[in-house]
């Protein structure tokens, strides 16, 4: 084989490597787009779930938002300790939404009202009631 032919083959190999490199680049670039969609959906889900929690009717015209407010001031609601109601009802709603108990944290101020803490990437939403921050955090 002549020297010129070897050089052409070498050049073709380089072109092919560049081509495959570009193909792989575009494949990974499109994957990052779909992650963004997932995060947008999760953001919406956390925000809407906190709204559901605030409004949920628990007993005789009392909403879970009212019970959370009572819990923040160590009060009673629905005939029992308000914080017990908060912990139980939040766990039920989170479970029915399809999340495990180690995938969320619910805080009223600095006090945790979920079975465990979670780690990893998080998405959170919150609102203020009587100067106390109520926060829902989802780990994924």
């Amino acid at each position, binding site marked *: 084989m002549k020297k010129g032919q070897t050089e052409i083959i070498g050049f073709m190999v380089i072109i092919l490597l560049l081509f495959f490199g570009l193909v792989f680049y575009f494949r990974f670039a499109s994957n990052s787009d779909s992650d963004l969609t997932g995060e947008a*959906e999760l953001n919406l889900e956390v925000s809407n779930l906190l709204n559901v929690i605030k409004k949920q009717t628990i007993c005789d015209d009392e909403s879970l938002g009212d019970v959370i407010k009572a819990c923040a001031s160590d009060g009673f609601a629905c005939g029992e300790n308000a914080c017990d109601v908060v912990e139980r009802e939040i766990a039920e709603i989170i479970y029915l939404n399809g999340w495990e108990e180690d995938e969320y944290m619910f805080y009223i101020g600095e006090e945790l009202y979920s079975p465990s803490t979670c780690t990893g990437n998080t998405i959170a939403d919150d609102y203020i009631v009587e100067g106390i921050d109520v926060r829902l955090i989802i780990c994924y």
Partner: protein
Amino acid sequence: MVGLGFFFKFQLSSIEEKADTSCLLSNTVMLSSITSMPEIQCSVNANREDCIDTSKLLVFDASRIYQEFFNTNCDQKVYFVELYPSVTNGTCTQSTYPDCSYYYFFENEVDYTSKVIISTPVSLYYPLDESYKFGKLVIEVLQ
């Protein structure tokens, strides 16, 4: 030839992937826009609230007014389901309301091989006893 073959194969799968992503993205946006539709959203003294009024949901026919809105990108089935504290499973009609769970909102009569389900939590309002219940807006993206 082999290079071109690979190029077109990757290009085709990339276009198909992008179409699916675009469809999913538009339906994710739809999750948010449906819950803000004035025809079904709760309102008190003309002020909107972040919940869905089930009495409005029961009588509103989305396929008559929003046909184009739903058919822009891909086919889907849209419904609301009450999750807590639900005790019944039936479809909601004027005769079964409020002892029911499923409010069908929009449905395309198409054949499909697979579906992707996306959903978001919503607060369902029942004006009869003025209560709010936990539900979900579900979109089944048909492919």
